[in-house]
């Protein structure tokens, strides 16, 4: 009896080990194939850079707006210095009133199925994108028509000079080959050709040999979609050429790989209510105003009195830069916004404004009001939490007491009109500046919860939107930050105390040259590959 039963177990174990053996054979086969791939991998680029677009690789639904659509082409694009250069368009013209935009298209651009790219494809793309109810915001576009096969005319609802940046992000899809499965199997006229997409796993691209521009040197690209931890595991086995990472994982060293940190405009800062509490509420009933932060001396003192370099060291492990605006180093950045860390100056500002610590409890008072307020941050984000806590610590030296609270976004939505919030922005267009500081947005949404309103700034921004000269526009955006008398920067009204720009971190194989990187916007992964067609292997 016992023997029979034992026999049964032994039998089962034998079967399992047989299965193990045959898997072993499969294992060898795969291993040798992998080493083949490794030899060839000089030509195949493997990257792990985060998450795939849920709607597929379809520009109509927003694919390619972070970086470059790779598979499709855009009418214009931004170069390394964030200047607008032509891509599908050979030239463009904007009328004086800023309402009619005409683009002339090149005639040597073809989709990878051989069909030529024409104005009709452009019209098709923009009309569908407008109707798609996605993150592609074309509300400013009134109409778009093809004047002839290679000329497109946009008509805007009102002048908006920043529209060109939106055009630079919109890939063009083929009218003749578009249906609702396009995102799973797209064709385009871009530098790379779509080969295969295994959802949730990998995207395979090949260089487009018929590309009208410079054909990429890297011929085959595999992009893997995995979590950061899984990417670290893969990097360890040497299978990745590029692996995206975060500061907390950078202590590991990988053989043959170096850590690259790119400059970004992925910023974090504190928005502080600029109006006092007068009993007003938003239309949903949320209280507006904060009696402490509405005092401009408090805000300016914080901006001068917080050591941003220290924050970068302590909170970001050195992987970041101090930030003084929402658009540091962009072409529309006013360098006068930069302030030096000056604790004495900060204290002086508070003293002059009447914030004195009369009772010696470490907190200044003015007219029976303690210099204390709360900074809220999105719970679960360790960087925001770190920055808020760091600010709170540093503020003690100024005699300001800051409470720090981590909440969920829907809670923040209710409290952001009366408390300071640690938020992050960073886009490659000055439209963001408009949305953040414009009077029409105050108290409405999370763009301007601090209720900031400055008519002079509004005027500069409106003018910047209506002007058709991009240099003039940049000057006007700069004036909005500081024109010598007033503005949105620390020198002016200081509604925001911007803190840091977070570097984006990637492990890159030593044999890979990823070219010069543009300043990355908010959003970690895809911006790295916007210049993928310039990458090459270093021999």
């Amino acid at each position, binding site marked *: *009896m016992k023997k*029979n*039963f034992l026999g049964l*177990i032994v039998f*089962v174990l034998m079967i399992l080990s047989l299965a193990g053996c045959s*898997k072993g054979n*499969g*294992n060898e086969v*795969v291993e040798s*194939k*992998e080493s083949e*791939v490794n030899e060839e991998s000089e030509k*195949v680029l*493997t990257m792990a850079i985060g998450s795939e677009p*849920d*709607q597929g690789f379809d520009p109509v*639904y927003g694919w390619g707006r972070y970086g470059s659509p790779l598979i499709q082409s855009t009418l214009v694009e931004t170069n390394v210095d964030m200047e607008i250069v032509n891509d599908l368009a050979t030239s463009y013209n904007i009328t004086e009133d800023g309402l009619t935009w005409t683009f002339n298209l090149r005639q040597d651009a073809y989709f990878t199925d051989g069909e030529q790219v024409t104005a009709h494809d452009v019209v098709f793309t923009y009309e569908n994108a407008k109707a798609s*109810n*996605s*993150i592609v*915001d*074309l*509300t*400013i576009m009134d109409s778009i028509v093809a004047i002839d096969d290679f000329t497109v005319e946009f008509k805007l609802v009102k002048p908006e000079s920043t529209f060109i940046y939106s055009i630079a992000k919109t890939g063009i899809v083929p009218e003749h080959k578009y249906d*609702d499965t396009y*995102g799973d199997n797209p064709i385009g006229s871009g530098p790379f050709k779509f080969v*295969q997409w*295994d*959802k*949730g*796993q*990998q995207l*395979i691209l090949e260089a487009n040999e018929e590309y009208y521009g410079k054909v990429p040197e890297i011929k*085959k690209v*595999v992009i893997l979609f*995995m*979590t950061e*931890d*899984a990417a670290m*595991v893969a990097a*360890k*086995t040497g*299978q990745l050429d590029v692996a995206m990472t975060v500061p907390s994982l950078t202590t590991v060293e990988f053989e043959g790989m170096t850590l690259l940190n790119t400059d970004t405009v*992925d910023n974090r800062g504190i928005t502080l209510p600029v109006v006092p509490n007068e009993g007003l509420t938003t239309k949903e009933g949320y209280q507006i105003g904060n009696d402490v932060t509405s005092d401009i001396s408090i805000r300016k003192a914080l901006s001068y009195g917080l050591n941003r370099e220290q924050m970068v060291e302590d909170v970001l492990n050195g992987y970041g830069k101090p930030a003084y605006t929402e658009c540091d180093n962009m072409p529309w950045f006013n360098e006068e916004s930069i302030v030096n860390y000056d604790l004495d100056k900060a204290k002086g500002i508070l003293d002059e404004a009447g914030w004195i610590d009369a009772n010696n409890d470490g907190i200044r008072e003015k007219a029976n009001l303690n210099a204390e307020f709360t900074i809220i941050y999105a719970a679960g984000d360790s960087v925001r939490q770190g920055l808020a806590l760091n600010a709170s610590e540093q503020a003690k030296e100024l005699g300001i007491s800051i409470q720090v609270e981590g909440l*969920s*976004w*829907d*809670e923040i*939505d209710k409290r952001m009109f009366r408390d300071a919030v640690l938020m*992050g*922005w960073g*886009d490659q*267009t000055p439209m*963001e500046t408009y*949305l953040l500081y414009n009077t029409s*947005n105050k108290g409405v*949404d999370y763009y301007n919860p601090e209720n900031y309103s400055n008519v002079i700034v509004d005027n500069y921004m409106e003018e910047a939107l209506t002007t058709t000269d991009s240099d003039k526009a940049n000057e006007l955006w700069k004036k909005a930050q500081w024109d010598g008398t007033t503005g949105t920067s620390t020198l002016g009204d200081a509604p925001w105390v911007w803190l840091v720009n977070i570097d984006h971190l990637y492990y890159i194989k030593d044999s890979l040259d990823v070219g010069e990187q543009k300043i990355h*916007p*908010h*959003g970690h992964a895809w911006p790295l590959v916007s210049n993928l067609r310039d990458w090459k292997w270093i021999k």
Partner: protein
Amino acid sequence: MKIFNYIMNNFIKMIVLIILVCIVTFTLAVNSPIDPIRQYVGSGVTLSVEQRESIEEYWGLNDTKLERFQKWAYNIMHGDFGESLIYRKSVMSVIKDKAMSSLFLMICTFIVSGAVGYLLGLIMGKYRDSILDKILKTICVTFSATPTFWVGILMLMIFSVKLNLFPIGFSIPIGKTMEDVNFYEKVYHAILPIITLTLVFIPNIALHTRSKTIDVLQSDFVLFATARGEKSIMINHVIKNTVIPAITIQFGSFSEIFGGSVLAENVFSYPGLGSTIVDAGLGGDIPLLLGITIIIAIFVFIGNFIADMLCMAMNPMVREENIIG
């Protein structure tokens, strides 16, 4: 005829169950504080207020909750599961895309953990209190208390990184186009996730079977059989009495296996339904969330139903009870 009535009865029960599940899920999802638009748009994307409102309109957020449920229920009755707001495709096609590999993983886990767990349970019960039993029991209890993803990461670190025996994840080799992938590679990639899930689910059925085995071995009729010198007590008595509870438990833990597969999929970057339903839930994508929930509810119900049918097939007493009584 009687058996037909039985099946019809169960079918009606299933429909009622699904309706209730839908109502509860919908109510919970719609009342959750998640702002789906914020999740969808992400941060740092500049959108005008107009566009935001247009998206809200598209997502149906401007209708009242009752209206939204009515619209959805009406569509479902016509077999239209609606369109996923995150994926912008029909819910059915999203589910079809993602379900295949999940299913493969889950069915393998189900069978392997069932078979091995049952055998282990029998062994532990028979050799109760021996060294073997003590060791196996400790292992079982340990694994049942261990989180799935931790076991997964452990497997990954040992077998993929240190020993380089298995791939680090995914369901097909990196960089290979679909036509080049063969069946063996698919199985090869599924092994670690299956082992992970199996290790975590074996204890459940093993420990249950163990206690049932002990019960049977202590019963009067087994005592009598031993006294008579019967040779194959295990096969004649124990198995016949323990296999039905084992099947019931195994089929009942179907939903747990599904939950476990979510975690395993995450660790191994294995594509599947588990991560999809998490995305749907966190993203406020109600059509997709409800679609998957219904499918799972149907599966669990069918699982239990099959368990019942098997029990009836194997045990005439149960058959009579269910159909006549």
